[in-house]
């Protein structure tokens, strides 16, 4: 474990559903842990939890975030330690449909306790702009805005950026929340043909600094099938390398941005499943 300075609370958010928030939370959480930090990933998607599944911990969930908030369980009872990485933990969401159980004071208290124990608290936001999403971002120091290079995703990201600048504790204190853009499901060959918004288009429209570009890859699907984040399961694959680079940038390292290239896309297309 690294020497702890102060914990960082990161929200992984998007507005639009299905863009890759949960995948990215798991991949970046595992990458941070592999780089030596103590990490907890927190699922805020009450009623639709999936982070447990992506991390392969679905059969080990006993208590969840809402149980901790309600005082049914103590925090250490609800935390699940990853079987592969000893400094990676999961705090699962509840499958109960009662989203109101997530109270602002309760979430604040749990985040406060987690800050004492971890270097990184990575919060997987639900889609939308409702309560679950605003509570997930509420206590964040840093936001990772997950965007696909596609019109509705970019529009929703813009909306989320507005919320991050208005509704977070940091914003209300008059401070600026630290924002990073993570472009996922990027198809190099489509971008090259002008069939998909380019990285420059997205950056110009949203004007948030770029954390990384994750290519569309079957490795990601394979990793979630196996319940192992791509940064553990296929650490040398293109998406995993992109996630590791993004993670290092999140930690403040300066790393040249690699735009997934068309040749790799063509390579994938020509030589099929193994390449990406």
């Amino acid at each position: 474990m690294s020497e702890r300075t102060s914990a960082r609370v990161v929200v992984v958010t998007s507005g639009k559903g299905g863009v890759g928030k949960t995948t990215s939370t798991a991949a970046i959480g595992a990458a941070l842990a592999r780089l030596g930090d103590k990490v907890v990933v927190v699922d805020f998607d009450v009623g639709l939890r999936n982070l447990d599944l992506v991390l392969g911990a679905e059969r080990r969930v006993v208590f969840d975030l809402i149980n901790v908030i309600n005082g049914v369980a103590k925090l250490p009872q609800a935390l699940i330690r990853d079987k592969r990485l000893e400094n990676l933990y999961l705090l699962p969401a509840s499958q109960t449909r009662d989203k109101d159980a997530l109270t602002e004071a309760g979430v604040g208290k749990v985040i406060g306790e987690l800050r004492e124990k971890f270097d990184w608290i990575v919060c997987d936001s639900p889609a939308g702009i409702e309560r679950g999403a605003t509570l997930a971002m509420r206590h964040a120091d840093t936001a990772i805005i997950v965007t696909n290079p596609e019109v509705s995703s970019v529009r929703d990201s813009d909306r989320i950026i507005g919320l991050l600048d208005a509704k977070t504790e940091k914003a209300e204190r008059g401070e600026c929340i630290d924002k990073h853009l993570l472009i996922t499901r990027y198809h190099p060959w489509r971008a090259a043909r002008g069939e998909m918004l380019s990285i420059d288009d997205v950056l110009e429209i949203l004007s948030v600094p770029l954390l990384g570009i994750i290519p569309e890859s079957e490795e990601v699907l394979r990793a979630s099938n196996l319940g192992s984040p791509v940064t553990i399961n296929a650490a040398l694959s293109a998406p995993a390398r992109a996630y590791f680079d993004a993670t290092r940038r999140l930690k403040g390292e300066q790393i040249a941005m690699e735009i997934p290239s068309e040749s790799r896309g063509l390579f994938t297309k020509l030589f099929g499943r193994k390449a990406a």
Partner: protein
Amino acid sequence: MKLFNLFRSGGTAPVARERLQILLAHERSARSEPDLLAVLREEILAVIGRHVAFEPDKVQIKLDRGKSVSTLAVDIEIPNGSRVGGIAPQYSRLTLDGGASSMNKQVA
């Protein structure tokens, strides 16, 4: 033309980019202040409603948000004898076209 350009020219990404830029410019300004066009629409209808009785479903409002100029077109069908407290006008159609700021009163 290079092969690359040939590919690009068929791409729809530039259209996506243009549409997003226009839309987000409006949505961002609407976040900080109430939507100007929406305010105009409400107030114009209120003013007209003070002078003539019109049926809400006889009002057509068209909005076209452009990059530098937007137009709000309000088309209201006013039946005869609908004047609120006064002499009834002939059957009229009142058209307010926001973009060109023209006002036509046509007497049918």
